[in-house]
């Protein structure tokens, strides 16, 4: 069975295309590897503590809203953002929060590091995860005792 007969011309064209593709792919890899800190959209509170931060650096910090920390007092929202590694940061926000911001749910805060290591947020975004399920499925899991959330 001679389905594909690779003659010299065809081989030459294939090699030419592969060289173009791999040169381009490699250059894109080098660029994105060098810029990986800029491409990353946010840092976790633990990573933030390791960085040396000046007060005029615009930062994005992401994590979960700590349970029992979301409070509204003196026209300000106060809450803590924590991550899985145990780091956490206090955040202050003066505008209205997006509807999906809840305790133990994902959040991204953008702004500047203030005094007393309180983060002064200018923009707050809710970050939802990739798990989708109806309330009835959660109730069923709670009944069966296999629900691990909350």
């Amino acid at each position: 069975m001679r389905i594909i007969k690779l003659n010299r011309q065809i081989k030459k064209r294939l090699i030419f295309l592969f060289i173009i593709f791999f040169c381009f792919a490699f250059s894109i890899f080098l660029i994105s590897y060098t810029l990986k800190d800029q491409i990353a959209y946010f840092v976790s509170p633990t990573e933030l503590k390791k960085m040396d931060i000046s007060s005029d650096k615009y930062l994005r910090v992401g994590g979960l809203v700590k349970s029992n920390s979301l409070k509204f007092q003196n026209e300000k929202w106060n809450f803590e953002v924590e991550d899985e590694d145990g780091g956490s940061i206090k955040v202050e926000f003066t505008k209205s929060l997006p509807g999906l911001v809840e305790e133990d749910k994902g959040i991204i805060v953008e702004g500047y590091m203030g005094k007393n290591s309180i983060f002064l947020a200018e923009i707050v975004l809710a970050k939802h995860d990739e798990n989708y399920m109806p309330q009835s499925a959660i109730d069923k899991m709670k009944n069966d005792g296999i629900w691990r959330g909350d």
Partner: protein
Amino acid sequence: MFAITPQMMSNFFNSISKFIILLSIILIVVAGVLIIFLENDYYQGISFKIMFIHVPAAWLSLMIFFSMGVSSIIGLVFKSPTSFTISRSLSPIGLIMSIVVLITGSIWGNLTWGTYWVWDARLTSMLILAFIYLGHLFLLYSFEHFQKADFAASILAIIGMVNLPIVKFSVDWWTTLHQGSSVFKVSGPSMTTDYLITLMVSFFCHFVTFILLVYKYFLYHYRK
């Protein structure tokens, strides 16, 4: 395999066109009913239902670009006119799909995240994909001779394939506002079965519509 002529492709499309139109009508009704009667997400409420347009369109825009790249390689290496015709008919559909992804995504983003647009890795690489589609389409129509246009556009399609893994894996490689993938995960899909079935029906609905559009564009290019 490479002896397929545009005539054979056109005959094949003609013979299945009635079946495809019937299937697409059935699938649109079934997918619509499923989506309407599906229970809302416990956290996002009704706004998550835009996923059933957003996700299939995103998968298709990646798959279409991959097919375009492969048919461009075959076309350039084996000098096959059918491959170029397929590539030419895929390009506008891919552009439509990627624009649908960007629009539905920003509506969903505004409802859940609280913003229409951010410059994170997933959103930016998807925008770049849409721009590559646009560039491909412009290249196809900016030459007087089809051979030259096909050559230039095929090189762009092959180089543009570098962007596909970046779009797909951007949520794993970098931290993004966009959530990770729900369906193709090592630990299995992270949604309940009824959501998954609806998503698959909706995907086939999009896929059949895509086949119809390919059929239309292929005949258009073939008759010219």
